[in-house]
């Protein structure tokens, strides 16, 4: 199977949408849904044709691009990137469905969304640093327009803030990339992996990458674009932002940072672990005192990405597998959270927690789904989030017992804010103000049910997804060990 088809599907979709006149809204939506479904089908197909018993990159293809600089358009997929591709296509498709009631400039909305998705697929599939970097920018830039045009609240501020933060991050990654190129005259990741680098070089490069990609994760204290960005974005875009974009940073840091510069990573690992604890705990506390529901969920995302950082810092197979699994699990869970918040907002026209209350009477389905998502978020067994968090904790405890223990404390703080919010929104006596509200309809349930099934399915039977990730992660870890660098 040709991997570039996965990148082409959203691009061709965007081109098709350009040809459809804006007034045919339902045609645009149906086209989008079909394109999204195609993308999903193709990534599921990729999962089945992918050989899980062999480690390393598969379906590698290379198209010469700038031959004079030895830069090729190289794509490939391993267990790690495949899990991220699956995540992207699931959230993309459900995001399209969630936007079904969208009215405002639908055509342009989907076009920008599709360009973004193409960028994301590109990042996960590319085997050349320059190609990956370009795709990263393609994934990041449309967001500015999406927040600025279709957002809500202080959207201009949020859009600018988001863009400035992420472009500043990119600048650091760009410096690192140029330094690597000057040193090696190649940006081919496979080739780069065969070379050895001096320890001081690794330390500098890894720090630059940590800042550059850390902004996307986001890493405290570079995280402040996230709450505003998530909260101002329209629902489907929040889903993609929390579900996929934030994972680009973690992915790139594993693939390039840890994969190529293990000595540098090992040097900065205690710092990453410390920041991970700050992410987990500090942000969980911030989430606890938010008054706007979407800000709670947005902050919760940052807090959960702290677990990913913890998994990265420990740098062993278990912890890194857990980190990637957490990226998947959190992506699904965050998408579900934002979809639900969007549905509630659409009906009540408020996101202020204090205004809401007793909604379980009028919206039992929303209450059930929200509670399930919340339980997944606090790491309840039965959801995939528990498996991934458990793996991270097991892996991290070996290397950083004290820091890991403090990070585990976040499961308590998470429980506090999740259950408080659930109670404040849904429980309590019936509020007559909401009496006319309709519960989530059957059609609206479709994307939500898909996400719940994924979250629960891998929670109950974690092996298919986890072993896939394990297969992708292990060569990266073994590579460090083999080089005698750790």
């Amino acid at each position: 199977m040709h991997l570039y088809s996965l990148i082409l599907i959203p691009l061709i979709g965007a081109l098709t949408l350009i040809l459809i006149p804006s007034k045919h809204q339902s045609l645009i939506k149906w086209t989008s849904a079909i394109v999204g479904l195609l993308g999903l089908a193709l990534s599921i197909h990729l999962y089945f044709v992918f050989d899980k018993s062999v480690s390393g990159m598969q379906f590698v293809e290379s198209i010469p691009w700038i031959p004079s600089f030895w830069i090729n358009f190289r794509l490939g997929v391993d267990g790690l990137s495949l899990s991220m591709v699956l995540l992207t296509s699931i959230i993309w498709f459900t995001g399209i469905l969630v936007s079904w009631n969208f009215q405002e400039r639908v055509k342009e909305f989907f076009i920008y969304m599709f360009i973004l998705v193409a960028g994301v697929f590109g990042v996960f599939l590319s085997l050349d640093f320059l190609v990956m970097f370009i795709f990263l920018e393609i994934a990041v830039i449309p967001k500015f327009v999406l927040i600025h045009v279709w957002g809500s609240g202080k959207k201009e501020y949020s859009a600018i803030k988001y863009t400035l933060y992420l472009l500043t991050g990119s600048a650091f990654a760009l410096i690192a990339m140029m330094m690597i190129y000057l040193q090696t005259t190649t940006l081919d990741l496979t080739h780069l992996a065969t070379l050895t680098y001096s320890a001081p070089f690794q330390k500098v490069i890894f720090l630059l990458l940590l800042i550059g990609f850390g902004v996307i994760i986001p890493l405290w204290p570079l995280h402040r674009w996230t709450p505003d960005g998530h909260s101002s974005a329209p629902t489907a875009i929040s889903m993609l932002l929390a579900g996929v974009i934030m994972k680009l940073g973690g992915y790139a840091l594993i693939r390039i940072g840890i994969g190529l510069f293990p000595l540098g990573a090992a040097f900065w690992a205690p710092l990453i672990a410390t920041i991970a604890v700050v992410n987990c705990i500090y942000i969980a506390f911030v989430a606890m005192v938010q008054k706007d529901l979407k800000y709670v969920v947005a902050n919760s995302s940052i807090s959960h990405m702290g677990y990913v950082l913890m998994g990265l810092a420990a740098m062993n197979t278990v912890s890194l597998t857990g980190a990637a699994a957490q990226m998947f699990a959190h992506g699904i869970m965050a998408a579900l959270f934002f979809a639900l918040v969007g549905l509630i907002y659409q009906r009540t026209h408020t996101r202020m927690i204090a205004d809401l209350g007793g909604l379980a009477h009028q919206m039992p389905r929303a209450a059930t789904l929200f509670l399930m998502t919340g339980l997944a978020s606090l790491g309840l067994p039965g959801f995939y989030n528990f498996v991934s968090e458990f793996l991270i904790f097991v892996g991290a405890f070996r290397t950083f017992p004290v820091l890991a223990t403090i990070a585990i404390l976040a499961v308590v703080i998470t429980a506090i804010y999740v259950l408080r919010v659930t109670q404040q929104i849904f429980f309590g006596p019936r509020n007559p103000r909401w009496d006319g509200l309709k519960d989530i309809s059957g059609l609206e349930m479709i994307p939500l049910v898909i996400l719940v099934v994924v979250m629960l399915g891998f929670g109950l039977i974690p092996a298919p997804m986890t072993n896939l990730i394990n297969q992708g992660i292990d060569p990266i870890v073994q590579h460090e060990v083999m080089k005698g660098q750790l």
Partner: protein
Amino acid sequence: MDQFTWLIPTLPLIAFLIIVGITYRFKLLSAIVATSFSLGSLFLAISILIQKIQSPKTTETFINWLTLTANQQTVLTLQMGYLMDPLAAVMCLIVTLIATLVLLYSIGYMKGDDGFSRYFAYISLFTFSMLGLVISNNYFQTFVFWELVGLCSYLLIGFWFFKPAAADASKKAFITNRWADFGFLVGIIGLFTHFGTFNFAELSTVISLHQNTLVLLILGLLVFLGPMGKSAMFPFHVWLPDAMEGPTPISALIHAATMVAAGIYLVARGYILFASVDSVMIVIAYIGGFTALFAATIALVQRDIKRILAFSTLSQLGYMMMALGVGSMTSGMFHLTTHAFFKALLFLGAGSIIHAVHDQDIFNMGGLVKKMPITVWTFVIGSLALSGIFPLAGFWSKDEILTVTLQHHFMGLFILGTLVAFLTAFYMFRLIFIALFGDNRSGHHAHESSWTMTLPLLILAILSIIAGLVNTPWFYQWTGMSFSTFLFFKEPEVPVIHWSIAVLSSLAAMSGILFAWIIYSKQQISADKLAQRFKGAHTLLLKKYYIDEIYGWLFNKGLLGLGKVFNFIDHILIDGLFDGTATLIRSSGVQLRLFQTGRLQQYALVLFIAIAAMTIWGVR
């Protein structure tokens, strides 16, 4: 029979799925499904127990739920499986039996409730989770089901979610348990890190090689935090009294007989871990003993019938924990068994009374003995058993705990235990004399409940009378075995009666009943005057030692305060710094822009001034 062990939890799971997926709209059908599947589990549990009695060997089966490899070698295996030994068999019986009786009882109790099907679905899910916990063969699986029973407890305490008190209580239960489970989780991860396995059997082999090491001390205490939360030991006890906001049958099943006993069960299951470090055992013993006394004193002054029973449960759990801590796993488990019967009986009896009176304040009851005789007399039997009156179930188990406490030279705990026996009898019979006998104080029109509610009461009353006999010398002589030769940690003990201790504890219990009779039935001493006389102590007990207030303060000032501080740092400091940088760059841009406005006149002016200046300069 052991190969069918997996079916015991699976049947309630199937019931849950059937109710959620199919019979949700048909209320009675949901109840029938839940009850009959639970009955199926009960029969399986009985046959497995019988088989275990005949040949008490251990069976273990598991699958690898998740395996991670590094460099072709397994680095982590998470198992799901079952371990069927006498301990699990006894616990399975208790859980399935109480669950079945509670389900039967609930058909009457929950009649007409909007959430009838939801209720039966939740109980089935709970039964599944609890049984999954009981048969678990490793700490990981135990943790998984441990959390799931916690979830069911949350869902069932908050069953009437529209009541703010219920919603608060469910949240409190979950979060309090989370604090404890944090320690539990760190503990089992630590065990895995040090010993490379979660499996009980493998761990006990490895741990038996280590004694009194620092690692085992730390890990033992961490793991023990889990049981402290679930079994509501001080200082995690605060959630259990509030949990009474849930439907009363739930209190009987989850918050008296089974889930709260899971903590005791886990200590018994992982006994080798705790017993390998002396100081851990001492901590367990004293936390148990303290909780027993602490909760019993609070129970003395409460007015809500369910809260009195809740504090009594706390106290009895403390008793069991104390028994485990002093070194006798058997007597702790024995008391767990008898307590499950009589405390479930008491809660179901209380439910029957609340159902009839529509009030939970014991001072609004009274005069019930003629109107609902079955409920009242079974309640009295339950109270006698709880108080430890010969020859009821509680007498044997309580007596044994006191005996082992003395045998292991815990003199202080022995005195404390005897005092608690006195207090227990006193508060139970205070409740009985006020709520069941005497005059009808609120003009209620109580009547006896339907057969689905009284039948479980009768069955449990019979068990409360006879269950203790299985650990008596007579039973041992008759059958050649007893509870303590069936279920033991290292070596079986033949039951004996220590008459001096038996007499002492009986005297304590009977004087408790006597005092209650004098004060609340004969009213020769005025309770109000006593309360006036010891006003400080009375208020302290009424306010439950102000623990809830302290925690509330800590939460508001500590956690929320910290949240506000961090939020401030986020918004003012970090945003200020970054937004400030952005503003600075922009404003410098605005300033720099003046240098290239594109207006020719301006440039010409600058040029002119410059030439003029240079000319002047040159002339000078």
